[in-house]
Each structure stands twice: as structure tokens, then as C-alpha cells.
């Protein structure tokens, strides 16, 4: 049976991979996937703590409500972010952060 530490470790590992991906890849779409991965990794921590923190023999559903909210906000965030990427691509032909220099000077 896996322990709480194992869940927390894999959650942290997924978060680290997402963070590393955001730092390494400069494509807007792939960076966005890294952000999604970090949110999902945080969700794994919340669900693990909710399962191990039993209240009257049941999982603590407060944690799962928070996961529900995070998934909702992530969906809204993706929709707005991708709309911004589409607008950028349409007006400037940019899909890459290194080319985003219009605020320089």
C-alpha cells in the first residue's frame, strides 16, 4: 500500500517537471501545458491529504471541494490564455515568448 509520502513525492515530481518545462520550452502553447501540469500536481497533493485526513471514517471532503474549484478555474484560465495566444498570433504572428518584445523601449 502506498504511503502519504509517496503520493507527495510524485506530486512534487510532477510539479517540478511542469516547472522545468515552462523554463525550458519557449513555445507559448507548450509553456501553457506546463502550467496545467503544475495545477494538476497541486491537485494530487490536495486529494492525498484529503484521503489521509479521515474525518469520522470518511475522507475530508473540504480538500476535494478545493480540487473541484481549482479544476474550474484552470478551465477558465486555459480558455482565456489560449484566446490571448490566438489574438497574438493573429495580430503579430507570434507563438513564441522570445519574439514578444513589443513592450521593450
Amino acid at each position, binding site marked *: *500500500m*502506498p*504511503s*502519504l*509520502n*509517496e503520493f*507527495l*513525492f*510524485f506530486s*512534487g*515530481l*510532477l*510539479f*517540478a*517537471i511542469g*516547472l*522545468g*518545462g515552462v*523554463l*525550458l*520550452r*519557449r*513555445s507559448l*502553447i*507548450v509553456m*501553457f*501545458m*506546463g502550467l*496545467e*501540469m503544475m495545477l*494538476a500536481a497541486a*491537485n*494530487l497533493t490536495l*486529494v492525498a491529504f484529503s*484521503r*489521509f485526513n*479521515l474525518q*469520522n*471514517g*470518511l*475522507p475530508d*471532503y*473540504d480538500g*476535494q*471541494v478545493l*480540487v*473541484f474549484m481549482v*479544476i*474550474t478555474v*484552470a*478551465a*477558465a*484560465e*486555459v480558455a*482565456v490564455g*489560449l*484566446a490571448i*495566444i*490566438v489574438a497574438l498570433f493573429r495580430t503579430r504572428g507570434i507563438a*513564441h515568448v522570445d519574439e514578444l518584445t513589443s513592450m521593450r523601449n
Partner: protein
Amino acid sequence: MPSALFYFFAILMVILAVAVFINRNPVASAMCLVGSFICLAALFIGLDAYFIGIIQILVYAGAIMVLFLFIIMLLDLKAEEKRQIRPLTFLGGMAVVIVLVFQLSTVLYSFEPGRVTLDQRPIDTAVALESRASLDEPGSIAAALERGTLPDVHLLGERLFLDYKAHLQIVGVLLLVATVGVVVLSRKRLS
């Protein structure tokens, strides 16, 4: 959740997550992310969070990733595949990841309460039924607990609609604002 299943899904999740950033083709990246999220949903289900596991597949692996694929299809990202990662960026990114994982392992190594395993904390429907006896509710939660099953969706819904109803409405407004915002952002300027 048996250890073998846990390690299978967890390691597959990590491998697919790494593959997202190794792949040069954005479509392949998106498909790897779908696989990674499905493995994550399996971990949620292993933690007895059935509802969260299912909406993870429906919302993340289904809706959000289809949105990603549509945008990749709309944008012409041919140039992206040829682009090289600069070595300094690579070193910096890897350093951040390694430091984070190292810190995490040292913290978890000395985290005594985290040694508890899933079978040491079993879900006890009899205790739950007893503690809910004073609520005097009709309906399916008590019936399911009496059968010894976990009415996951009912319990989460009860918490969501009784204790967090204001938050739920705020999230609803947020979704509405996001929908309107997306329409405004992506519409063609009429000049």
C-alpha cells in the same frame, strides 16, 4: 490501491510528463499530456476520490486538451519543431528541477506523519453512519453507507452545495466572465 498499481501509474505519469517537453511536435506533446492526466486520474481513483478522478478525465483530458489541439491546429507551428533549446536555458531549467526534487526528498524523508499508508487509514462507513445519525436525513447517503460503499459524489455534492454554496456561485460568475472575455478576445476587429 495496491503498491504495484500505484507505481505503474505514477511512473507512467512521470514518463509521459517528461515526454511532453521532450517532443518537438506540439500535437505529440498534447497527446502525452492527455496520457499523463489519465494516469493522474487513476491515482485519484486509487485515493477513493472517484468523482475528482472522473472530472479529471472529462474536463482535463477531454475538454481542455481538445481546446489545446484546436489551437495547435489553428496556429501554424511548423517553425517550432526546428527550434533548438539554448544550452544555458537547459542548464538553468534542469538546475531548478533538481534543486526542487532534492529539497522535496529531504523534507519528505524526515516527515514522520507521512509514513502512514493507505491500509492504516481505512475508510470506515460504520463510524461515518454513526456520526451522521443525528442529521436524520432521508436519502441515498445513509443507504450507501449502510451497504458499506462510499457515496463519493453525494458526499462531495453535499459539502459543495451546503457549506460552499457562496464559493460555488462565485466560480460560476468567474466562468461566465471567462466565457465573455474569450469571445471578446478572439473576435475579429471590425474596422
